[in-house]
């Protein structure tokens, strides 16, 4: 009991010191607007990819429509903060984005989550495309031009906090009764049913939770970037989130963090390469997968508890 408390406190300290570290670096100018921009993008990608990792890596459901839910959050924020240009308006828009995306996730998930494997992937991809096309043809969303001049109500502290919050929610969910049920669905649906687990319910739970976090990421994206258009949420965006998940290691949240950071840095470095950029990116993708098929970290997870134990063991060995 006490020990658990200790680990939670350590995590909290890490998160708070991370915040102050960044704050200081920005103040003394080590992190300029450009690096801040990169870090925020990485943060948003982390939120997106942890949510997708929950769906793919833990629940074993191959969803290829994550960008659709991101779009819902983004447009909720863009539309609402047009009129309610206050932080309160922004947080309200996040909540509305979450609610709408959960509703849509239910509408999409209830029929499609009965499908398996690649069929599910295509169905979710289709659902996301439907969302995008509807947005593309609506008036309130600005059609293909999208919405720009969105007030910037999310800066890096908001994004940082949201990364922490969504990660905590997802990681804690994974390590709870629900998380175990979800993992059993991935491992063997028939055996899970035979153990009294309502497979469908848990699939849907993971799917909606993932969708809700994607909506949060969308809200942050819209407010930070101040411009959105339907093209930001196409199939390619869903694929690039998928790439983060797989590259980091399906089923490793730590891996998702690492991959989002690596790809974020790679992406900015490659800006200088013009037309060659995507060639290099593609080659890197292929090589990483060939040499590390289970992703950068596989299913390895950073755990303070384990660090302590290992450290403790070493101490004991020394004595």
């Amino acid at each position, binding site marked *: 009991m006490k020990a658990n408390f200790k680990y939670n406190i350590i995590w909290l300290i890490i998160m708070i010191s991370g915040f102050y570290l960044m704050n200081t670096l920005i103040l003394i100018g080590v992190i300029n607007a450009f690096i801040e921009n990169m870090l925020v993008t990485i943060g948003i990608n982390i939120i997106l990819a942890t949510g997708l990792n929950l769906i793919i890596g833990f629940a074993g459901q191959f969803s290829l429509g994550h960008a659709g839910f991101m779009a819902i959050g983004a447009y909720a924020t863009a539309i609402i903060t047009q009129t309610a240009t206050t932080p309160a308006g922004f947080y309200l828009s996040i909540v509305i984005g979450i609610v709408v995306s959960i509703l849509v996730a239910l509408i999409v998930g209830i029929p499609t989550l009965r499908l398996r494997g690649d069929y599910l992937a295509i169905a979710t991809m289709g659902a996301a495309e439907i969302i995008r096309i509807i947005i593309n043809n609506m008036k309130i969303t600005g059609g293909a031009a999208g919405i720009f001049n969105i007030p910037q109500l999310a800066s890096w502290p908001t994004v940082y906090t949201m990364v922490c919050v969504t990660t*905590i*929610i997802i990681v804690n969910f994974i390590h709870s009764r*629900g998380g175990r049920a979800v*993992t059993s669905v991935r491992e063997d649906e*028939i*055996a*899970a*049913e035979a*153990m009294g687990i309502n497979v469908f319910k848990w699939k849907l739970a993971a799917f909606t939770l993932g969708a809700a976090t994607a909506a949060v990421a969308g809200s942050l994206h819209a407010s930070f970037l101040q411009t959105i258009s339907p093209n930001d949420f196409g199939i390619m965006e869903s694929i690039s989130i998928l790439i983060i998940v797989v590259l980091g290691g399906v089923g490793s949240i730590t891996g998702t963090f690492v991959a989002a950071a690596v790809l974020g840095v790679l992406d900015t470095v490659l800006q200088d390469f013009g037309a060659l950029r995507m060639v290099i990116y593609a080659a890197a993708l292929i090589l990483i997968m060939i040499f590390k098929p289970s992703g950068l970290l596989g299913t390895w997870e950073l755990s303070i508890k384990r660090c302590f134990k290992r450290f403790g063991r070493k101490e004991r060995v020394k004595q």
Partner: protein
Amino acid sequence: MTSLLQVDNLVKNFGGLTAVSDVSLHLNNNELVALIGPNGAGKTTLFNLLTGVIPATSGSIVLKGTNGTFALNDKKAYQIAKLGLSRTFQNIRLFKNLSVIDNVLIAMTSRYKEGFLSSIFRLPNYYKTEQRVTEDAKKLLALFELEDQTDVLAKNLPYGTQRRLEIVRALATKPQILFLDEPAAGMNPEETANLTQLILKVQHRFHITILLIEHDMSLVMNLAERIYVLDHGSLLAEGNPDEIKSNPKVIKAYLGEGE
């Protein structure tokens, strides 16, 4: 006497093939019953019907358990499991990439509540529940001499141990009836003897009813109080081991001459 599980006129068709045809049987409380029959007789299919993996074409399955009487026909597999029917599989279906203890904990999920918010925000309640169920799981594993293997991935266990873990996992759901599908398949005589002891232990310790499919007659004849014989989807015979052993129809269809 009312029986714990009453099955009447159960039928299952696969297209043109009738895998189970008009089977009626019953299981009494704390009984150990065996189901035997030639390959393809429909034994596994019958298990699948009873545990809701596939729906029956017709017939009725009624459970008169400690919590009341339920018709199981139109229930989903997970609902049936929650009502206290648990099973192992002919081809091992453990959660291969998960640890031994996770396999057991998953089976226990339908037995406790944790609350979404309390687990997400790590409220004290979460830790209390986690601690309680983990201890329960460890106790159960200790009973089957698996306490040293809690963190081993299921797929890395030796075959015989995997079979054992499957039984533990099935027990973790706190079943009233346990279905075992060929638990001794692939085991040598010594291992089979150990398994026999284990099954007896389970029956007595947990006061549950067991129905088992097995082709290893040494195990069946040692354990079973009653035996049903299935052939071509229908019941061929029913009786105690001695009756079955000497039943000419069973010898002809299943046991064969000699030995």
